[in-house]
């Protein structure tokens, strides 16, 4: 019977090409708008490290106090004092302090211009903790951290620029006039959202091309290339700065079990209480230990534009559906005589349901195909609407294609329920009576 209904549906759709076209266009536009904005929303709200997101925790300790914080939320970064104290205590399986450094790489060949690159100063644990994929060598060691060694891990892109992609482990890289020995080359690793550095990047940025040990960077007074917030004037000089309450460092930890996480939280509270006793904090302990997804939520990495445009697009789809319900109602009720005859000739209500829902389904398929085309165009045009760093994340993949089609078909079949129900109510006696 399916093919019979399909045939009837197609025939009926061909009968009113304008009405059919209108419904297909409405479904197509509604679905395309929703899927395009959804692709952006999906990209901005996705889990950047699904395999470990629930064992990685960002640490926050409130050293600003209630007067300098909002709604009791501790500042989004740590002071040098707190970050290094917590790092030294070594209470988690892995931990790494991180801050962004703005650096220039000076190529060996003097005829090449220096290059500005993004970098991070961090610890040895950073790489295994975040599953950073290496293509050559490996991370530096805890020993390198201890010895404040001049070592570096570079990205494949930088390796291509400096060494034409060749073996570079053991070679030197000149960072602002200082030499670092390369111990490893990683893939161009930039999980999106860039969860480990949300406060400085907003969550979306290209990855870094150079990583150096935190201890060495501090020795070299490599300036912080990210946000710096001070509750009061820190005074002058690098050492004064390090001992100030200015916040500029993030501390990430890997804690494998929930019980350990509870213990770590207690430890953090204890640490803050200690600071309160010593007179440094004039307030009760206010600490946070948040896993990746909680952190991304609290930091609001999904741009409001993304959510607002998704909501508006969904509203748009709803209107397109209401529109389609109206048009289908008109179309189906215009065929009340036919329905009456079919019922008289033995069609059950179920038969009428099947016939009209399949007809609506074919509109959905057509709308879905149009929607797919428009979604493709929409995603090409996302760059007009969203900043490039976000727009480039919106892509068409098989999942999106499938969703577009399914949403279109489901939407049109849902839209057809009421008109079909009305059609099935047409009495078989209708035509006899009307004469």
């Amino acid at each position, binding site marked *: 019977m399916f093919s019979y209904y399909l045939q009837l549906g197609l025939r009926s759709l061909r009968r009113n090409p304008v*009405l059919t076209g*209108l419904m297909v*266009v*409405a479904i197509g*536009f509604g679905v395309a*708008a929703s899927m395009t904005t959804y692709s952006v929303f999906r990209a901005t709200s996705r889990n950047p490290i699904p395999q470990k997101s629930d064992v990685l925790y960002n640490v926050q300790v409130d050293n600003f106090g209630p*007067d300098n914080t909002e709604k009791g939320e501790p500042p989004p970064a740590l002071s040098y004092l707190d970050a290094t104290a917590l790092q030294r205590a070594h209470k988690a399986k892995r931990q790494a302090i991180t801050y962004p450094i*703005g650096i*220039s790489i*000076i190529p060996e060949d003097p005829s090449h*211009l*220096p*290059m*500005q690159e993004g970098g991070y100063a961090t610890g040895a644990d950073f790489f295994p903790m975040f599953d950073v994929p290496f293509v050559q060598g490996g991370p530096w060691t805890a020993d390198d951290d201890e010895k404040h060694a001049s070592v570096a891990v570079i990205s494949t892109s930088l390796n291509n620029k400096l060494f034409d992609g060749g073996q570079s482990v053991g070679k030197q890289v000149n960072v*602002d*006039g*200082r030499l670092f020995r390369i111990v490893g080359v990683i893939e161009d690793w930039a999980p999106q959202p860039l969860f480990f550095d949300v406060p400085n990047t907003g969550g979306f940025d290209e990855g870094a091309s150079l990583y150096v040990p935190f201890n060495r960077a501090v020795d070299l007074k490599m*300036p912080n290339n990210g946000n710096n917030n001070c509750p*009061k*004037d*820190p005074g*002058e*000089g*690098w050492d*004064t*700065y390090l001992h100030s309450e200015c916040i500029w460092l993030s501390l990430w930890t890997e804690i494998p079990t929930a019980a350990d996480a509870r213990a770590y939280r207690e430890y953090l509270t204890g640490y803050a209480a200690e600071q309160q006793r010593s007179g440094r904090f004039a307030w009760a302990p206010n600490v946070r230990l948040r896993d990746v997804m909680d952190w991304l939520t609290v930091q609001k990495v999904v*741009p*409001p*534009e993304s*959510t*607002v*445009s998704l*909501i*508006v*697009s969904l*509203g*748009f789809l*709803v*209107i*397109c559906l*209401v*529109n389609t*319900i*109206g*048009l289908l*109602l*008109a*179309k189906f*009720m*215009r065929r009340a005589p036919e329905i009456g005859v079919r019922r008289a000739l033995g069609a059950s209500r179920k038969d009428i349901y099947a016939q009209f829902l399949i007809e609506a389904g074919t509109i959905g398929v057509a709308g879905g195909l149009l929607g797919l085309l428009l979604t493709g165009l929409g995603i090409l045009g996302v760059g*007009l*609407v*969203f*900043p490039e760093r976000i727009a480039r994340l919106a892509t068409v993949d098989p999942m999106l294609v499938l969703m577009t089609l399914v949403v279109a078909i489901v939407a049109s079949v849902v839209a057809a329920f*009421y008109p079909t129900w*009305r059609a099935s109510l047409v009495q078989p006696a209708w035509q006899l009576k*009307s*004469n």
Partner: protein
Amino acid sequence: MQIRPILAALRRHKAGTILIALQIALTLAIVCNALFIVHDRIDRVNRLTGMDERNVVTVQNRYVGSTTQFIPQMKTDVQAIRSMPGVESAYVTNAFPLRRGGWSTSVQRTDQDRKGEGVQSALYFGDEQTLKTLGVRLIAGRNFTPAEVRSFELQESPAPAQVIVTKAVADKLFPDGDALGKVVYYYKGKPSTIIGIVDKLTVPWIDVDFMDNVTIMPLLHNSTYQFFVVRTKPGQQDAVFKSIANTLYGTSRMRVLPDKTGVRTFEMVRSKAYEADRGMAILMTIVSGVLLLITAAGIVGLSSFWVGQRRKQIGVRRALGAKRSDILSYFLTENFLIALGGVVLGVILAVGMSQWMFTHFEMKRLSLTYVAAGVAILLSLGQLAVLAPAMKASRVSPVEATRSV
């Protein structure tokens, strides 16, 4: 036109009536809010910086190498730029309007840690050519002299003896309008005297609540990272834009001028600063346009169906003496009544949606002008959309009355 018989007829077409009204209501809710967002964003995009933005070129620069003394090279660079043909004036700074990054601090009238008294102000470093280069107008006091321009170190607090502030800062600190010559404090223990007041200049950010609070300080910051701001002679912007990188590399190659953000005209700066707003405005305009089209098409479709369904009835009316204009106005009135119901519901939805976005996305509340405009747009859209089907109805011949279905 009698309204009661129309309402009676509509009761017999409940589903269709409700669907059209609902569609109009939802469209109104979305279009009002979308157009309001467009308006709001366009307002932002067109916000004035207080600068004369024509003929300005900016350069983002980072010195490389192991030296820690950048001031001499900075001075060489500024000199080199100033002597370029086509350059009117130039200076080196940490930030400028629409840069979307910079410094700010709280400035207060007394040197005490009193809370709530300070006024948040952005800090722009510059020299005697800053005002001319930005094209801002001094409304009181004087400009800096070259002798007043000092250097300061990386970890030092910027607090020079002389500052120029915007009128907004001056008025907030000294509501009586006597700010000129007064001493204020940017950092503890470091007094600064207000020697000049400029009319208007905005902060580097686009999303703060102290847009017009700016202080210009006669300072050279010993930092690897800075901006050169250049005013060119009229018609020379292009030439300077193209040759400035080479001029700088000519004084030293040990620097980085990033590909995308290195050398930019101020038009590029502005366009980049507001790309999200412009994008939102474009998206919302497209959504509103397509929505209105689809709603109009929906009304045409359903109205045509009704007209088709009622041909015989229309024929009878015509046979009983109804004029064409009577039939036409019947359908126009009918649509108007449905649309009226729709917009009433739509206004409630629009305000609700705006309230929701206000609480969740820190958006502004919908202005009533936009609701009114939306209502007017949808009512006239409805009338326009029903016009063709209604014309068709008015052309139904009285003979239809005699035909069987």
